[in-house]
């Protein structure tokens, strides 16, 4: 059971980080980004190629993160900006189109076989009181937690405060002189950075492929939903809970039902807490 929870915390960290990437972009740029997992995947694939070509681990990691960040900023500037005034759905469809295209592009360039990102600690294990802990799991969980703390700290900084202002009221934020365009680019960059971290963490522990992105993005969205698309803590906790539920179901019920059961659990949470599970009830509309 503990073993399962540990695996759950690991995959939960990927979901949580991806959820955070989605929430950051949603808060500052108001875009529901369905292409987040693919952005991370493109960056990670570049990293694995460099890694396979003999470039040592840490430089490859840096290149991966830079590519993820830049790719996200370019997408914001080139595709998303001018659609912003049309509301969420054209934006969502745009990111869906983008995720399809990026996914297929990865397949075209690098193929559809699963890959991993070999780290210096790959394959090493610890024995903690009879519990088999891989270093990859330790790294994932620690980096996930540090990432969440870092993002929370960022939103406490002056720039983060501006993003919160934009999230609360776009019009007022503009009036008090917040440069929404610059903030949007920064949020996208930050989102890309977090997403590539999430996918890279997944790749150093297990295999990633063009097929793994779809479930990752849905889990990420579900985590973001549990935080009401607003709360960083809610998203992080939601992602971890999702990971644990999914692993428990996979171990004790069936792996094919993982997805549906995890979503149903979230459904129950939503019914009890309609604004995500860190928020109280709110009266709609009136």
């Amino acid at each position: 059971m503990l073993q399962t929870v540990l695996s759950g915390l690991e995959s939960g960290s990927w979901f949580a980080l991806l959820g955070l990437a989605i929430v950051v972009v949603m808060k500052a740029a108001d875009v529901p980004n369905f292409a987040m997992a693919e952005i991370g995947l493109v960056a990670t694939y570049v990293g694995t190629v460099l890694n396979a070509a003999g470039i040592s681990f840490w430089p490859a990691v840096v290149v991966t993160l830079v590519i993820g960040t830049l790719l996200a900023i370019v997408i914001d500037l080139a595709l998303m900006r001018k659609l912003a005034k049309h509301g969420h759905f054209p934006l969502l469809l745009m990111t869906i189109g983008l995720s399809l295209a990026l996914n297929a592009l990865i397949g075209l360039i690098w193929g559809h076989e699963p890959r991993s990102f070999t780290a210096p600690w790959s394959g090493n294990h610890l024995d903690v009181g009879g519990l088999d802990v891989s270093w990859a799991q330790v790294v994932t969980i620690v980096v996930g937690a540090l990432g969440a703390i870092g993002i929370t700290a960022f939103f406490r900084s002056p720039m983060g405060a501006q993003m919160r202002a934009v999230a609360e009221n776009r019009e007022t934020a503009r009036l008090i002189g917040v440069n929404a365009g610059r903030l949007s680019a920064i949020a996208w960059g930050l989102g890309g950075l977090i997403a590539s971290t999430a996918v890279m963490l997944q790749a150093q522990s297990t295999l990633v492929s063009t097929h793994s992105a779809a479930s990752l993005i849905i889990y990420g969205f579900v985590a973001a939903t549990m935080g009401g698309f607003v709360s960083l803590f809610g998203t992080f906790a939601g992602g971890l809970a999702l990971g644990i539920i999914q692993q428990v179901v996979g171990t004790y019920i069936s792996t094919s039902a993982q997805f549906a059961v995890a979503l149903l659990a979230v459904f129950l949470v939503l019914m009890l807490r309609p604004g995500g599970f860190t928020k109280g009830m709110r009266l709609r509309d009136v």
Partner: protein
Amino acid sequence: MSEPGRATATTTHTEDPTMVTAGAEAVTEPSAHAVGRTKGLVAVVALLLLFAAPFVLNSYLLFVLNLTLVYAVATLGFNLLVGWSGQIGLAHAALFAIGAYGSAIAMEQGVPFLVTIPLVGLAAGGLAVLIGFPAIRLTGFFLAIATLALGMAIVELLKGARAVTGGGGGLNVEVFTLPGINGSASTYFVTLAVAAVAFFLVRRSLIGRFGRTLQAVRHLGQLSGSLGVSALRYRLIAFGLSGFIAAVAGSLYGQLQTFVFPAMFEMNLLVPMLVMVFVGGAGSHWGPLIGAAFAVVLIELFQDLGDLQAIAYGVVLMVAIAVLPGGLVSLFATFRDSRLVGRLLARRTASERSEVRA
């Protein structure tokens, strides 16, 4: 029959995530009976042409046309829910699956195909109302995730109930034939008839009181209560109707594919369904048909290109959204406006004059 006016592209940005451009078409005063008759004539001619298709087209093109009509009907229901009532219910692919499986299983039990169509519609309609119950407390993305969860659970059940559904391996569908006509033409004729009736009835109810009420619920939310409208009741009706239509389309899909398996009805179907609604034009009358044609043609056009197909699909989707955020129907509206530009100009100057006077 009153006529829809121009689709006014509203660019208002509200918290309602489905609030996109093109909205519904503003209904102008139903004065032009002559225009109505012309349109009726156009519809009849189009139907006759479609009716002739099996005698003219080869089997591949007939299949593509048939598939387009099936998706158009499914999207008609989805658009009713998403575009008109403003609720992102994501169980639509699963309800479509209920139609395909339900019809096939009922036929195994000896129920004639044509009888299974309304049966699966009613069953899925009831189920959709249950799926819609979270709408009591949830809206927007929260409702989307909740309904997605229920939809995936349905597909999971289809996989699990091996004895009835054949599990992940799938199920053969007994093909219905009209007397004296081959299977694919029979399927096509039934599809055409169902599509014509569905579009006619849905359009008719949407241009009148029912459509107005749905939009009041969408735009006023709970405040529509002050109009004597129970928002919840109409939200659930929209779920029920969309489920009914989804399952009817699903039963036709089963006939068309002759073999169904659960993996057909997952995200790989749900995402194209969303694309069809929004690329066609959410909250419009003919958007579902246009969106379905767009999606099917795109898939078929780039078939056998492998990854290039998916890239092309994604890129064309992105271009379509970037150029026409209100969906393809807004293109027709623009075209109509430009053709009638003279008459419109005259009307506009008159109205401007009156504004100056006021």
